[in-house]
């Protein structure tokens, strides 16, 4: 994989610096880190569940098996539910949703 800079072309400077949305730009960057990590966590989680399913059904797995794996309808439904629950738990922070009634 090429780093983004070389894909974009080093002579092609952006017209504007990256946009900042928070009062402290540190928050923009931290949130970027959180999202990168979160996505990675999901990728890993998805992969692990896929492996579990494959182990169950085949007993022996290869890397190509994992990449080619497509869940059946019920597994896909379970994965979608799990993914939705995970993304919901993460995104709830954005609207500062309380988990318990405040005193």
């Amino acid at each position: 994989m090429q780093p983004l800079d070389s894909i974009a072309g080093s002579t092609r400077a952006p017209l504007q610096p990256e946009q900042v949305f928070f009062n402290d730009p540190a928050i923009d960057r931290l949130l970027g880190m959180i999202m990168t990590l979160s996505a990675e966590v999901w990728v890993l989680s998805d992969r692990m569940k896929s492996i579990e399913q494959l182990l169950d059904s085949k007993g022996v797995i290869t890397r190509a098996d994992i990449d080619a794996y497509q869940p059946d309808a019920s597994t896909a439904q379970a994965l979608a539910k799990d993914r939705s629950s995970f993304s919901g738990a993460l995104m709830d922070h954005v609207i500062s949703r309380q988990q318990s009634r405040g005193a």
Partner: protein
Amino acid sequence: MKNPDRRFDAYQQFVLDCKVYWSTQVYPELQTQYERAVSTAAREGNPAPTNPREVQQLIGGTTLYQFYAWYERHLQRMKYSGRFGLIPRFEAERDTLEAKLSETDRLEQLRLKPDMEAPKYYTSFDVHQHPKGVAGDSLAGFVYEQASRTTTPLIKRDRDLHDRFTNEVLSRANPSKMIDLGCGFGKSTRPFYRDKPDLELTAVDLSAPCLKVAALNAHDDGARTVRFAQRDAADTGFESGSFDTVTSTMLLHEVSPPHLERLVQESYRLLADGGTAVHLDFLVPEDQPFKRFIHYTHGRRNNEPFMEPLNEIDIAELHRRAGFREVEVIPFEEAAGTLAPDYRAWRFPWTMIVARK
């Protein structure tokens, strides 16, 4: 794609889930907070905002808006970039995809102009945050085609809106010889040649990589009455009066204001007397300052700087100045129920401009 990659699929689905949350939870919450702020201001004797700048003053500094804005920009960035973004995914299969693109050399339906110089506005920034833009890499058409599948995440089948628009055009204009301006990779063109196979159809775009994908898809579909040509929609070079219908989908907001004026004049020139131009784009009425604020700032966040100017000009008057005799500006329901007053999720302000010569 030739080689499956479950990690890519899982990542992209995660980003999409977050976008759905943003559309259905964060945006409505922001709107609720705005409405509360307006009520509070009213109780203190302050008038409600009447324009986007005043909305910005009211909610632009709130924590929720800052998160809202960050996620809008960065979920789009995540779609294209990063370890499992669209750019590295397509890059990994460059050789196979280039070979596929080379099949267009023998397609008579496609006419490219390799020496064509694109307008400066078109190449000076990365539209939609697409690295290098929609014409800056030979694979850009494939990347754009994939990216567009999640532009409207709440519509289950994203082609629904194109089907709906096609039905509107077919019923309003009954075309027999039509030109689709800014066709991109052909998503807007496809339902026309599919639903009306005898339609003599020309589709133009500036982007050669997108036109190649459009031509490949049309060839695979068995469409024989459509031709694709690399032309500037504001200066197509086709004969005056040679079409009875001119369409565009999500094009007007992509062009600079001087270019937009020329594009409307070109649409008029291309039409025969009695012909119809139908453009589908994004317009927010002036009496909806919150939605204008959301839309204008969306344009900035997504590298689409002409969203705001398109809304600030009088598009109907622009058409009348070009010579059109009747102009209608009509809200467009891109999926069932999206124009209902109680629809709270984020959506584009889809609008049709129908102009008759």
